[in-house]
């Protein structure tokens, strides 16, 4: 009887140790694979009140954030590159609202805030706030849409990925697209946002479609790093009446050195 009780005690303790080990292994963010190679397990990402991943935060692009292949441009688009460059320089020179896709890569911290019905994106460069409506609405009818530099964006969650569909761009602001080409009022942009590394990285894959500009849809990916608190996200100052600044910018168009 004594031996039997001892065996029960040992069995219970073995089970306890096993359970605790299994539990702790399961909760840790990484585990050892055979051969000692560390296998990263997906860490939990922050989530909003509706259970979707929460992409709110301050995000920045770094030197290793861009995966941008060259775009395959139509002959017409290739022939308009100089014209488009002049257009964009004028927009910069006169402090115009830069619009998409410049707001997503202006070099400064991008502030993203996610609510249950709308997601806002705020860049530091002179620009409108970018709104992505996630309340289930559709795009307005084509004849009712008021083109704006950021376009009209609607989003929906597919699992843990936010799919954003944008049309209705104006022809103003900085129109250049990473990798080549430019947006037009007929451009269609599809973006896929999803968090990586437990929310430390935000992947944004953009696919531009515009038969006037691209032979085939042009896709590239940015990976933003999450940064902690920043100073008050003020907009950069911009004075269109600063003649020295104007000369500096516009001399690039004529190929001359700034005066």
């Amino acid at each position, binding site marked *: *009887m*004594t031996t039997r*009780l*001892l065996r*029960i*005690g040992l069995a*219970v*303790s073995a*089970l*306890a140790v096993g*359970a*605790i080990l299994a*539990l702790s292994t399961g*909760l840790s963010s990484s585990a050892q694979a055979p051969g000692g190679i560390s296998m990263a397990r997906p860490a939990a990402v922050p*989530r*909003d*009140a*509706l*259970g979707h991943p*929460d992409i*709110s935060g301050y995000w920045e692009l770094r030197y290793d954030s861009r995966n941008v292949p060259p775009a395959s441009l139509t002959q017409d688009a290739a022939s308009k590159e100089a014209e488009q460059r*002049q*257009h964009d320089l*004028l*927009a910069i*020179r*006169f*402090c*115009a*609202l830069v619009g998409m896709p410049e707001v997503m890569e202006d070099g400064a911290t991008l*502030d993203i*805030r*996610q*609510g*249950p*019905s*709308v*997601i*806002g994106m*705020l860049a530091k460069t002179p620009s*409108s*706030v970018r*709104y992505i409506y996630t309340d289930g*609405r559709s795009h*307005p009818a084509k004849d009712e849409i*008021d083109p*704006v*530099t*950021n376009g*009209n964006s609607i989003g929906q969650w597919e699992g843990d990925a936010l799919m954003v569909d944008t049309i209705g761009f*104006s*022809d*103003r602001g900085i129109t250049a697209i990473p990798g080549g080409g430019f947006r037009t009022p007929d451009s269609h942009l599809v973006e896929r946002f999803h968090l990586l590394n437990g929310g430390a990285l935000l992947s944004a894959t953009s696919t531009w479609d515009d038969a006037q500009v691209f032979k085939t849809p042009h896709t590239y990916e940015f990976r933003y790093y999450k940064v902690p608190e920043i100073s*008050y*996200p*003020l*907009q950069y*100052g911009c*004075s269109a*009446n600063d003649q020295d600044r104007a000369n500096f910018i516009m001399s690039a168009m004529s190929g001359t050195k700034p005066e």
Partner: protein
Amino acid sequence: MTFRANARRWSIAVAAFCLVALMISPKGLKSAQAPASQASSATPDISGLWLVHDPGSGDWSSFFDNVPKPAILPEIQKMNDDDNTRVAAGSVVSTGGRGPNCPTGNLPMMMASSPPLNIVESKGEIWIGSEANRGRIIYTDGRAHPDAAGLKALNSGVGHSIGHWEGDTLVVDTIGFPARTCDTRWPVMRVPNGGRAKDTTHLTERFRLINGGKQLSVTFTWEDPTIYLKPHIYSYTYDLIENGLPLEGGNDVTDQDLLKQAQGRGGAPRY
């Protein structure tokens, strides 16, 4: 004590340890807590495009002043009289420029203006813009206001705002208004119907959805012993523009005709 009794106690102790270990594990703790969604979804979502409800004032200035008259100090009344006299004499255009040291934004004017407010509410911040423009950020993440140096560095006409929910009401506390603006007509920021706001002013706003979420009520309470004899209180109602989309103002800066006009008057095209 017999070996048998020891073994039984040992088994019970190990089993109890297992139970406690499971209970205090992160997994156990997580399941014991209320889901985050319950706490967050308890606050109303005031996101949307909101148009200030004008009862029919006739023009914007009349609407701006269509609130109860504040009780103000005599020196503030004199400031109002002097400014009004100057404007009545024809000084209707500000000549103060818009240099880099000028405060940007104007909270009391933005909250009263005809372009609709565009609100994005998230967990830690609420943004209030005017149409597609950027505007105010109300921090709801529990932070405090910056210190005096931090407030001065903001140099913002919308001050620094922090907010919290009291039931279904968002209570917003704002300080850090600029001592002076670059507007030569009104060097000290104007508040509806004769009030003023400056670096010593404290604003409390109470935002609440009404009429089933079709309207947003905002009550403003301005306090400053160097301006007001008692708190200046008034309310606005905003109507929801369902499925509304913000418009973007401005001219095309690449328009050659506009560029020629701009060159003709030595400035930039308006946009």
